[in-house]
């Protein structure tokens, strides 16, 4: 770290340095350059190319072409899956987190569940796809058990390689992610609030309806939006499961990398920028809601 050493000499040991704007910035330069080269610059270049026409002029044509059926369908499918898994995963994740925090479970059970949530929320990709093929695929364990019980999932319209199947698979990481994100908020509910409401004669229902849920609402909404973004940007699981037959927005971008399926590279960049925009909006809303909820639950 030659930069840091120079700074050291300039400051002369332990004395509190006078404010040296330039030198201090040098200390974060390696980080900024690295993040710049691998995250920021590539995205900016992508954005610039999405604005370039076939002849090299600056144009919004690519964004206008987003209205083609292929693109619209892929975004619609992605949004549908993300919404449904955020909603279902959000509700069940909240219920599990609620049981863990306020359900009077023994401590080992609670810590086991929170560890498991930490593991499962990061568990996307090929192994997850393989595990679900082995479970609810045509010869999967669950499918066969149900068949033995007289119910044929596949005859009833279930298909692992379709919208409903992908949603079931995504829930495996969505649901524990909700547990992780919402648990601190539920733990932040103050016992005094419940006591105060009980002293004033409120029922448990009234406590939840008028105090706990309103206080938790920004966190719950924020967490669900985070879940939405999490599913929206997911590629590996869907790719491993369907190999690209089910065209999500991420799958479409992947196909655009290996071969120009849209027959217009610029349109591919516009699709990618569209994804970044959706992600940025959802993460942005999440952090705003998170900050709002910290007013009560910090």
């Amino acid at each position, binding site marked *: 770290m030659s930069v840091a050493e120079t700074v050291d000499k300039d400051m002369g*040991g332990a004395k509190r340095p006078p404010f040296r704007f330039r030198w201090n910035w040098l200390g*974060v330069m390696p*980080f900024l350059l690295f993040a710049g080269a691998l995250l*920021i610059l590539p995205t900016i270049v992508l954005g610039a190319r999405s604005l370039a026409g076939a002849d090299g002029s600056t144009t919004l044509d690519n964004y206008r072409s987003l209205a083609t059926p292929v693109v619209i369908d892929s975004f619609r499918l992605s949004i549908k899956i993300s919404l449904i898994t955020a909603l279902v995963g959000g509700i069940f994740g909240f219920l599990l987190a609620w049981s863990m925090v306020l359900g009077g479970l023994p401590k080992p059970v609670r810590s086991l569940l929170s560890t498991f949530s930490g593991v499962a929320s990061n568990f996307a*990709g090929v192994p997850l796809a*393989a595990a*679900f093929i*082995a479970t609810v695929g045509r010869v999967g364990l669950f499918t066969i058990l149900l068949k033995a019980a007289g119910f044929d999932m596949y005859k009833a319209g279930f298909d692992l390689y379709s919208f409903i199947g992908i949603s079931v698979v995504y829930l495996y990481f969505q649901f524990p992610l909700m547990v992780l994100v919402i648990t601190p908020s539920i733990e932040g509910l103050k016992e005094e609030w419940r006591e105060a409401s009980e002293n004033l004669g409120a029922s448990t229902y009234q406590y939840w309806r008028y105090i706990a849920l309103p206080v938790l609402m920004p966190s719950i909404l924020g967490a669900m939006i985070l879940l939405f973004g999490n599913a929206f940007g997911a590629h590996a699981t869907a790719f491993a499961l369907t190999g690209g037959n089910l065209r999500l927005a991420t799958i479409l971008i992947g196909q655009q990398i290996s071969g120009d399926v849209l027959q217009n590279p610029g349109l591919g960049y516009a699709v990618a920028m569209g994804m970044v925009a959706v992600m940025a909006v959802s993460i942005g809303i999440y952090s705003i809601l998170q900050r709002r909820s910290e007013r009560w639950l910090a």
Partner: protein
Amino acid sequence: MVGLTIAGPQSGSLTGHGAAGGPGKPTGSTPVPPQRSLIRRLWPWLIVVLAVVYFVTPLLGTIRLSLRHNKGTWEAWRLILGNEQMWPAFGQSIVNGLATIVVSLLIIVPTAYWVALKMPRLRPFIEFITLLPFVIPGVVLVLALIRLYSAPPLLLTSTYNSTRIVMICAYAALSFPYMYRSVDNGLRSIDVRSLTEAAQSLGAGWPTIVARVIFPNIRLAILSGALLTFAIVLGELTIALYMAQRTLAPFMADIVRNKPFEAAALTLIAFSVTWLALGMISYVTNRAGRKA
């Protein structure tokens, strides 16, 4: 179970390791549930049992399928363990994972330390940048990286190994949210300024301070970020796939499509390695919590 436990103020934090960016703040006291009817107390158990069934069934299904090869119970295991491409792919992924941790630590530890010591007001800005991987989906990032760095002036991806280096750097960038969070949490739990001044008064230079004073003090905090990074790199498919790397995940994706029984066995192997790494995080976090 004990129906009504009096939870003391130090009853443990359940925040996990805040993988997805929930504020990993320590919690105060867990609210004590009042005495409730039996049915009310059974509800949480019902939910937990359902959750456990949902979590465990895919594992059981995978175990079952791995033992159902039509040539014999252990045939799928024999085939996958004897597969000539499996071990090199596994090895590459492990090396990539370790290299990613090293690159990520080399960037994040000095930066987080410097910011904590000299420019605390920059903290939100640095944190914002570390969170960018959440905004840029992996598939978009790999598209952008390939289009930028494979094009004529740079040609960084012209050979397998140069591509591999680009990929490891991309992985390091993807690990920033986790790594920065755990390093920063570690730094917040120690007195950075006093440690620095003490080391300086004993004549230590910056590299010595970072490597021999700061790093050992936040080792446990770093470990959780490092293990998570390792687990993520080990299973990462999208970037490796489009950068044509022969790592574990693309190999697995191939197997999943063609050989379901072997895929189940391989999944269980990958499962156990990943879960070992991730399970260790909570063990480490618990120990760190006890030390604090």
